[in-house]
Structures are given as structure tokens and as C-alpha cells.
């Protein structure tokens, strides 16, 4: 059964069309991440699910019930906000208990659930404190506690980690993933951070301009993007895009380099395309394990070590590409060397409609 079903949802703000007809089906227990650049409509979509914005047209069903016109309180949802939304005049315990008390849960039950949630989040010792006495990470834990303490069908997260510093963000990401595994609840999570999306999601819904660009399992989107936008949005460092022309067996770059693309023998030759190569699927010559790689001579221009890996910048076919190599493979810029490109992972894009061929 699906816990959330959205059908042909539109949202207008005056002349601005923020959500342009979205269909979405979230099965019970799934962790769905709505991701996209700012202004893509992801937050609007989430707020419409919550009932904080009214849909212009279309329907929202939660737990099999049409709630398109229901008030937020009648939707049986819990939500974590970006700025924590803690009540400064209530202590941690009363903040967490707020939703339960609003719904007239008996005090003994409130007591039990609050202490269990606080324990899960490791904030049991902070219950008597006030929000102003907490650090950013602790505040966000309280905000999450206030959501998970509820017995809701759907848990919504609106960019909950974007106010935290990098280290804390990593910790809280683990925390949220763990909570989802333990609770097994249906969660819808909004972020603009593709790493959060990749690491947390059972399913990523990638939005662009108020429409779903592509949805599916994180690896599916990563490995088989349907458009240039999806290919470029997911992955860090970003996918390299090189202008190219098709040949019978693959593509040719502007400097004459010919690269065979396995399984793509039926291409119509002479068509202008864009070749997409992930930095992760490029290695120093001789280290590539996969068959079907192409060997190309290059000159390394710039080296950015990241610890275990190194990001090397080099010109190729009239573009500048980044390759993610093993740390000790490259020592200095200016080195002439050869790289292997895993062409089985290459993506060929039609520049006219930006679709992957």
C-alpha cells in the first residue's frame, strides 16, 4: 500500500507556476528524497503534502485518504523544519511532548514516548534544558524527536540539516538513516544536497522547474541518468561533458580522438552529441579493471588531493575534464601520461533535447 499518493499536482503563486503537474507514489516504509536545485519546487511540494500550502489542482492522498483539502492537523503527519522551530519558552521535554499533548494523548503515555524518543536521539540528559541552552546539533535532535515521538503515517523533513556545519551534518545524516531503519516509517525528505539524497534515499525524486526530471533508486539515477540535467546533478565531482560527434562504433572528439562505446554499434554516424564521463570511471592507464575501456594520452594540469583520492584536471577533446584517481597515481601537474576511460559507463546526450541517447 502506498502511504502517499500525489496525482497531477499543480501549485501557482499568482503568475508563478511552482509545481507543474506532479505524480508521485510513495510506498509504505520508503525513504523518499525530493532533491533539486533551489526554485525547483521541492519545498513547495513538501509543504503542499503537509497542507501548509493549498494545492491549485490535483490530489494528495495520505494513508489511502484524500487529504487535498484537509487541514495540516487532520493529515496525520509529522514534520521537521529547517530552522528547528522549537518553542523558546518550553523546555526540551515540553517541546517534544507538544504534538502529543495537542492531540490529547494521556500524560502517562506522553511521558513514556518522550523518554523513549529522547533516548533514541541521545538527548535524555537535556530534557530540562531550554532551546537557547542547546547547540545547533542538539536543537535539531530535539526537532527530530518532536516528529518521531508522534505516531504519524508520514514523516516530512524540510532541509533539516542545512543549518548545521559539515561535520555535524554527516553525523546527523547517519542518525536519520539509522532512525529510518529502526522505525521503518515512511519518510519524505527535501534537500538540495545531492550527497544527502544519494546516501539517505531508498528512492530519489529529482525535480527541475516544477516537474519530476527522473525518479528511482539512487544508483539507478547515478548510473543510468535519462537527461543531461540528472547526469550533471548527481555525483561529486560532477560528470564531465565533452562535445563529440558520433561514429559507427562510438564517438569522435574534436581533437580527432576516437572512443568506442561498447554496445552502441548502431549509432548514426556524424551526429553532434555530448559525451558524459564520470570522474570516478576514469583511471590511470593499466589500472582499469573493467573491459571496454579506452586509453587516451593526456597532460595533467591541476591536482587536488582529497586524501584517499586525487582529483586531476586535464584537457580532453576541447574540454577540461576532471578525473578521480587513486591518491598516489599522480604526483605533480604537467605530467604527460595516459588514462583509461571506462566507456561502458559513458553517457551520450543529444544536445538538442538534452536527453540521454
Amino acid at each position, binding site marked *: 500500500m502506498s502511504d502517499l499518493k500525489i496525482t497531477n499536482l499543480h501549485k501557482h503563486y499568482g503568475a508563478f507556476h511552482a509545481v507543474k503537474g506532479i505524480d508521485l507514489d510513495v510506498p509504505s516504509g520508503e525513504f523518499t528524497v525530493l532533491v533539486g536545485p533551489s526554485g525547483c519546487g521541492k519545498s513547495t511540494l513538501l509543504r503542499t503534502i503537509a497542507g501548509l500550502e493549498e494545492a491549485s489542482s490535483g490530489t494528495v492522498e495520505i494513508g489511502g485518504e484524500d487529504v487535498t483539502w484537509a487541514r495540516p*492537523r487532520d*493529515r496525520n503527519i509529522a514534520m521537521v523544519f529547517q530552522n528547528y522551530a522549537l518553542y523558546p519558552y518550553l523546555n526540551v521535554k515540553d517541546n517534544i511532548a507538544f504534538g502529543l499533548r495537542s492531540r490529547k494523548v494521556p500524560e502517562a503515555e506522553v511521558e513514556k514516548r518522550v523518554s523513549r524518543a529522547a533516548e533514541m536521539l541521545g538527548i535524555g540528559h537535556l530534557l530540562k534544558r531550554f532551546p537557547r541552552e542547546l547547540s545547533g546539533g542538539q536543537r535539531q535532535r530535539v526537532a527530530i524527536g518532536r516528529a518521531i515521538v508522534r505516531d504519524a503515517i508520514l514523516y516530512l523533513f524540510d532541509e533539516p540539516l542545512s543549518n548545521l556545519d559539515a561535520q555535524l551534518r554527516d553525523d546527523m545524516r547517519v542518525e536519520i538513516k539509522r532512525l529510518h531503519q529502526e522505525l521503518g516509517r515512511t519518510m519524505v525528505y527535501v534537500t538540495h544536497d545531492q550527497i544527502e539524497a544519494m546516501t539517505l534515499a531508498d528512492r530519489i525524486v529529482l525535480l527541475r522547474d516544477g516537474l519530476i526530471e527522473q525518479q528511482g533508486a539512487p544508483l539507478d539515477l547515478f548510473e543510468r541518468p535519462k537527461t543531461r540535467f540528472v547526469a550533471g546533478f548527481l555525483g561529486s565531482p560532477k560528470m564531465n561533458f565533452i562535445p563529440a560527434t558520433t561514429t559507427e562504433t562510438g564517438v569522435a572528439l574534436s581533437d580527432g580522438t576516437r572512443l568506442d562505446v561498447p554496445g552502441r554499434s548502431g549509432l548514426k554516424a556524424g551526429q553532434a552529441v555530448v559525451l558524459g564521463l564520470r570522474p570516478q570511471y576514469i583511471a590511470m592507464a593499466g589500472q582499469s579493471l573493467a573491459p571496454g575501456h579506452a586509453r587516451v594520452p593526456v597532460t595533467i594540469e591541476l591536482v587536488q588531493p582529497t586524501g584517499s583520492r586525487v582529483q586531476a584536471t586535464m584537457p580532453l577533446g576541447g574540454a577540461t575534464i576532471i578525473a578521480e584517481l587513486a591518491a598516489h597515481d599522480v604526483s605533480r601537474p604537467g605530467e604527460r601520461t595516459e588514462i583509461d576511460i571506462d566507456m561502458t559507463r559513458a553517457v551520450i546526450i543529444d544536445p538538442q533535447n538534452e536527453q540521454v541517447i
Partner: protein
Amino acid sequence: MSALPFHRRHATRLAMRYLVALILVVIFVFPVYWLFIISFKTPDEIFAFPPVWYPNSIQFANYAVLFKDGDAATVGNSLILASVSTFFAMILGTIAAYSLVRFKTGGENLAVWIISQRMMPPVAIVFPLFLLYVWMGWVDTYFGLILLYTAFSLPYVIWMMRGYIEDIPLELEESALVDGCTRWEVLWKVVLPMARSGLFATAVFTFIFAWNDFLFALVLTRTEVTTYTVQVTHYFGGQSNFWAKIAAMSVLGTIPVFFTVAIMQRYLVRGISMGAVKG
């Protein structure tokens, strides 16, 4: 001067400042002191020359007379009128302000129109109001004055509360809505606690406005709900002024406001500065 060492100059300058401050304090506090002290004097002492700066014995005869004749009850009237009208103005005004802020009721200009009502000089409407009140039978009733004070305070309350409510982060309210609150519960459980300082500050000023009103009370009351401000004027006679009564009555009228402000002071300072930044 320039021959003096630096610390001496500094000390002199400080002493001068204290002296000026002291003189100013005396100028401002003396009338209040004089009012209080007259209320404890005998008639002889009041008119004595040279003046009696401090009476030999404090006596309460002036107050006793006010209570015996029932004049003191006018302070009670003022208290009832001011507190009840403040109560209603705060409730209605806060709800209206919330509506203006959250639902943009009446568009951008309604709030400005509301505060413009406050700019009208009361004396401009007092005569038509009197005729209306006579016709409605509201003259000299609690209801009539409470209605008037409430209506007159509303623009101020709405305007002030609007500023305080605008400062409340929207997410707090949305979170409460998702957590199961109705709009009314949001108002009660989130907006009021968040705007508490502003709420108290506004209430104090609303109370003081009604408390100090003289014009409406003079025109719209006779004998039943006379306020202390009107009562004081009864002691100004054609032949002579009853200074003892005037002083004692004024002290009785000062005390409630004094204590209200003293108790609320903590909120007042915070509330006023909150509104100063925005609204």
C-alpha cells in the same frame, strides 16, 4: 583650569554632571513630592507661609473624608473601566492583528487605515458621541465607557501587536499546525507566549490611556460611573479650591498605575524595545 592636573579636572567635570542631574531630578520630582505631602497636611499647613516643606505629623484625615463621602469609589470606577476595556481591547486587538499579519486581511492598507483612526482628535467626535449615547441610553453607564475605551484603544493595540506578531517565525506556527493545533490553539499556545513582552507593554499603555482619560468621562458620565479624573475637578470651586482633597484624590489615582508599571517593568522595557526595531 588648564593648570589643574588631569584627574582633578576629571573629578570636577563629574561633580558638575552630578550637580546638573540633581537639579533636574529635584525639578521633576518636586511636584510629585508636593502632591503627596499636601495630601498628608492639615488645612493650616497647606496655606502656611513660608510653606511647610515637611509636616510635623502625617495625618490621614484628607483620605478619610474621601472614603467617608464615597468619593474614593471613583477610583474603583476608573479601575473597572480601565481594566475591563483593556482586557477586551487586548483580546480583540490581538486577534485582529494576527489576522492582519497571517492572512493579509484587508490587504496592505487596512492596517494603515486602522491606525489613522487614532490620529483623529477625540474632541472632534465627543459631541456627536454624546448625542448618540443619550439616544442609546448609554450615558453614565459602565457599558458605554467600556465600549468607548475599547474602541479607542483598538487601533493602538492592533498596530502594536501587529509589529510583535510579525517578528514571530512562521515555522513555529506551521510546526504547531502540523502537530495538531487549530488556528485558535496556535494563537493561544504559540503566538501569545512568543509575543508576551509586547502583549504586556501594550496592555499597560492601553490601561494608562483609559485610566487617564478625562474628556470622555467628563462628557459621558454624571454621577453613577464618575471616574477619579472627573472627581478631582469637582474640588475646584468658584470661591476656593479644596487642595487637600485634590491632592489626596490624585494620590489615590496615581497608586494603581504606579504599581502596575512597577510590576510590569521587566516586560515593559523588553516589549518597548522589541517594538522599536520593527512595527
